[in-house]
């Protein structure tokens, strides 16, 4: 029983990574991607996927050298007690910040679309408590929930295809017109949509079959890329690049296009299901941060983990209340995007360098 609560199969890893990556991002990505790149937004999405791909490879290569040690032990071994401890703390702070942004943006969307008269902090509290319950059950159960919700979400994504009857495929043309620089600029922000791969740092020791990690990671990345491409493409052909800039959540707007006979407004149906789906990164990051935190404080995982989850959730909720309004909250989410780039790219490079120094240059063996 001991560590089995924190075990994941490589199949669950696929859905765990997917759940961490795909969330609020899929609602805003088409707009963000087409801001600079226009009709070439989908190319920007493709290029944006290179960042997580690189990160994934580097993290896997690194963790392979420390298969069962976990993130904290690895950091301390490579950087020593103080610097390593600092890096772990920074990672935990990133996790807290990231979940805070997720919970806040989620609460904002809920207030705008569903509960206009409810104060946003009530939603934050309610959501945090609900997610804390799920996260406290450990990695195994979190992996299962991720998987189940992904399948439900896949069914919902089919609904967006209903808007295709309004599609104007000439919106995609001319290809490559916006220029390389614009596409590259866009791809910087599209890469944020893949934020979540860095969680592999924490979950790597939980995976039962280490040899399948890279395959699982690539599968997750591939599925995420395909789903993002589909969403971007559909939004592009339905709205066109310039009109899309006026829509806050273009993917959600797709569901407004079609009027079903019984269910009057489809986007509510989507939002009703969306809770589980949008809250997944929160659940996963809370799980990871709490796991790290328990290890960092040197506590027994089986005994103290659920309490730590509550504390982590409390801190997350407090951070989430810092942005003053929706605009600032969305601004914070772009800070989270930059933080992601640092954690996903700089961290692995730093760790690889340290490993190289420690082992006398013999790393990629």
């Amino acid at each position, binding site marked *: 029983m001991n560590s089995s609560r924190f075990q994941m199969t490589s199949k669950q890893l696929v859905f765990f990574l997917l759940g961490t990556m795909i969330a609020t991002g899929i609602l805003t990505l088409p707009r963000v991607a087409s801001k600079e790149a226009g009709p070439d937004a989908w190319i920007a999405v493709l290029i944006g996927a290179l960042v997580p791909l690189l990160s994934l490879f580097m993290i896997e290569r690194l963790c392979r050298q420390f298969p069962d040690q976990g993130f904290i032990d690895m950091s301390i071994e490579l950087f020593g007690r103080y610097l390593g401890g600092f890096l772990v703390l920074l990672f935990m702070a990133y996790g807290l910040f990231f979940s805070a942004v997720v919970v806040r943006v989620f609460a904002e969307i809920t207030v705008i679309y569903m509960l206009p008269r409810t104060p946003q902090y009530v939603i934050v509290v309610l959501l945090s408590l609900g997610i804390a319950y799920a996260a406290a*059950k450990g990695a195994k159960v979190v992996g299962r929930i991720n998987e189940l919700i992904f399948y439900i979400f896949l069914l919902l994504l089919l609904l967006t295809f209903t808007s295709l009857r309004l599609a104007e495929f000439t919106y995609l043309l001319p290809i490559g017109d916006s220029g390389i620089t614009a596409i590259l600029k866009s791809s910087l922000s599209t890469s944020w949509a893949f934020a979540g791969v860095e969680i592999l740092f924490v979950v790597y020791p939980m995976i039962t079959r280490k040899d399948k990690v890279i395959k699982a990671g690539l599968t997750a990345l591939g599925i995420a890329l395909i789903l993002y491409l589909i969403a971007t493409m559909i939004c592009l052909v339905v709205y066109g690049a310039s009109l899309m800039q006026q829509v806050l959540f273009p993917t959600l707007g797709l569901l407004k296009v079609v009027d079903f006979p019984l*269910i009057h407004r489809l986007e509510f149906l989507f939002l009703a299901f*969306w809770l*589980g789906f949008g809250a997944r990164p929160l659940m996963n990051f809370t799980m990871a941060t709490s796991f790290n935190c328990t290890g960092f404080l040197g506590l027994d995982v089986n005994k103290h983990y659920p309490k730590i989850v509550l504390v982590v959730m409390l801190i997350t909720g407090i951070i989430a209340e810092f942005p003053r309004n929706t605009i600032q909250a969305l601004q914070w989410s772009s800070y989270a995007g930059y933080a992601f780039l640092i954690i996903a790219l700089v961290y692995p490079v730093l760790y690889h360098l340290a490993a190289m120094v420690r082992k006398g240059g013999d790393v990629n063996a």
Partner: protein
Amino acid sequence: MRKLPRNARLKKPVSDTNKRDAVTSLPTGALPPKLDEALEVLRPWLDKNGDVIQRLFKVKGNPPIPAAALYIEGVIDSTEFNRDVLYPLMMHGLGADNENQSDYLINTILQTAVATGQITKAYHTDDVLHALFDGFVILLFDHMAEALVIDIRGGEMRSVQEPIVDKSISGPREGFVENLVVNVALIRRKIRDPNLVVYRTTVGQRSRTDVAVLYIEDVADPAIVAEMKKRIDEINIDVDLSAGYINQLIEDNPYTVFPLSRVVERTDIAAADLAEGRVVVISDQSPLVLIYPALFIEMFQTAEDYYEKAMVGSFWRPFRLLAFFLAVSLPSLYIALLSFQPELIPLDLLISMARARAMVPYPVVFETIIQLTIIQFIIEAGLRLPNPLGQTIGVVSGIILGQAAITAKLASPEVIIIIAIATIATFCIPNYGMAMAARIINIPLLILSATFGLFGFSLGWLLIIAHLSGLTSAGVPYFAPFAPFRFSDLHDSIIRIFLWKFKNRPASIPHQDQKRQGDGQRGGAQ
């Protein structure tokens, strides 16, 4: 496997000294060989119990041996006792010579004079006393160190009848009864495999209830079997009256409304589950048996899903799952939509709803809760009253009360329809425990939806899913094959595919023997 904290909690009252005393206060030690002395030792338990019969007689022979038969009235089969025990001993005895040593003599009696199947010897006073109150016949002979214990238990009991709870249209009409021996035999008749193991033990210090654990040795996962045996052996209560007691003491997680074991009355379901590698627990005096490990989806399966054609079986299943969903969420959904997201309801419907609602003086939440309470009263009343009266209550409350409530403008017709559908839906769930679970989680979901609309509704469902994903039954994930997702088991979940395609045993239940049936069955298809 999960080490359960509740075991620690259970231990406490049992190590309580006065209960231990009650059991160990039986005289231990060997039985005195002389009949008078032996009876004298047993006297305190014989005299104070009016149902204990002492029959003193003499075994025919030269010289006649004084003997005593002790038994409990009504628990043994008295015809058999008179014909096969008393008659041969008194009328025929052992033949001529009774002068030999006692050890030899008792073997002779055992081998030649008593004409029953099950007979053993007992040496100790407490064994004899326990055997007597377990329902065996005790034979004591003068100048013999051992007593004979004869099993001719019988007496009045219910015969095998059609199950009351699990009805079936096209399956066998055979349900378990209150007798463990009969129940085990009913399963044996269905599975004649010599590898079907019946592990017997007793539970309850005072009730000494027989409990049997059944499993197929080369199919069931040994870890699960060992775990179930361990859990049952750890039970330490005074009286076990029903399988429900055992179920509460061995389930994985008491803090859940969902049934973590399958409780069935049908013999064919128990046999089918044994063949899938599960463990069946039978408690004496209980017509319900427990099946571990159980899955969430099983609570929506019935026996005739498998007896009818695959398409018929597949037709029923989605309706039951829909019934569960509606039973849990229809009232909540109604409140959430009406008070928070009326724009989701088509306009024409909304207008007629609003018109009806306008007459009702209190908020929709109260209206719903009042109706739910009334329905709960009606169900309860219908259960408690004798059958014909119960039906009257149904009619009176359903038609008259409902109609009157609408006319008096105490409730809108929509609420009554919603609550009625939700209640009927709970009756469509084949498993009683699951139906109750649906009725219970209805309430918190209702409160969440009434406070936060659709957001609260989906948060509630997220919690339900998280809760279900974390549950285990005998250490096996309860919500499989959905979470963890097992594609190979989906063929028997929301739908049920052709029987000849059930090649392997379900992956969700750990087992040893993967193959369930051979290839090359045509299934009538080609």
